[in-house]
């Protein structure tokens, strides 16, 4: 499966995407653990991290399906003002 990084995480990892091999039935949280295995510098951000698949936020305990692209977001800060 693919993981995409945005903003702070993209800069911290130096990459926009990461390909992971996960066992069937793994959760978002398991994917995060695999991400941190490759990029330990992200571990401290876990309390602030948002996950999304497609155009929706997902809970950490959601089960991933084959072909899912998991987006890993820092807290959003758009809007100005």
């Amino acid at each position: 499966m693919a993981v995409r990084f945005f903003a702070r995480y993209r800069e911290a990892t130096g990459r926009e995407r990461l390909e992971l091999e996960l066992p069937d039935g793994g959760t978002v949280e398991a994917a995060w653990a695999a991400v941190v295995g490759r990029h330990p510098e992200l571990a401290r951000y876990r309390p602030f991290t948002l996950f999304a698949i497609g155009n929706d936020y997902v809970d950490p305990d959601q089960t991933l399906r084959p072909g899912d692209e998991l987006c890993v977001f820092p807290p959003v800060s758009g809007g100005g003002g």
Partner: protein
Amino acid sequence: METGDLYRIVEEPLSPDAVAGSVGNPAAGGIVIFSGVVRNEKDGRPVKYLEYEAHAPMAEAKLREIGAEVRRRWPSVKAVAILHRIGRLEIGESSVLIAVSAAHRREAFEACHYAIDTLKQTVPVWKKEHFEDGEVWVGLQGG
């Protein structure tokens, strides 16, 4: 998404005239526009410029959801437009424009205020502040 509505992530400068025109409706009595503007300082520290980044397809989907919720809460709303700019923005430039037309002004004010408050909580857009001596992504303790 209703006729006249507009939900976009764009790289070009934003124009209040354009969003006001897009929500124009012969049954509207008032239009309220919010423009979020790049300030020259953050907690007393001079800002040089900002950069915005988005997950554009998801951000546009979330903007559409905000518009749908606005219409659900304020049925007299006639049209909604929400545009967020990304890329490099200078002091005084507009990063976000929200326009709401409604039969009466109270609904337009309330709906527009709701839309910007919700946008800041839900839409995947990120802001990086550039200072004379460094830069920081906003909203993440421990930078």
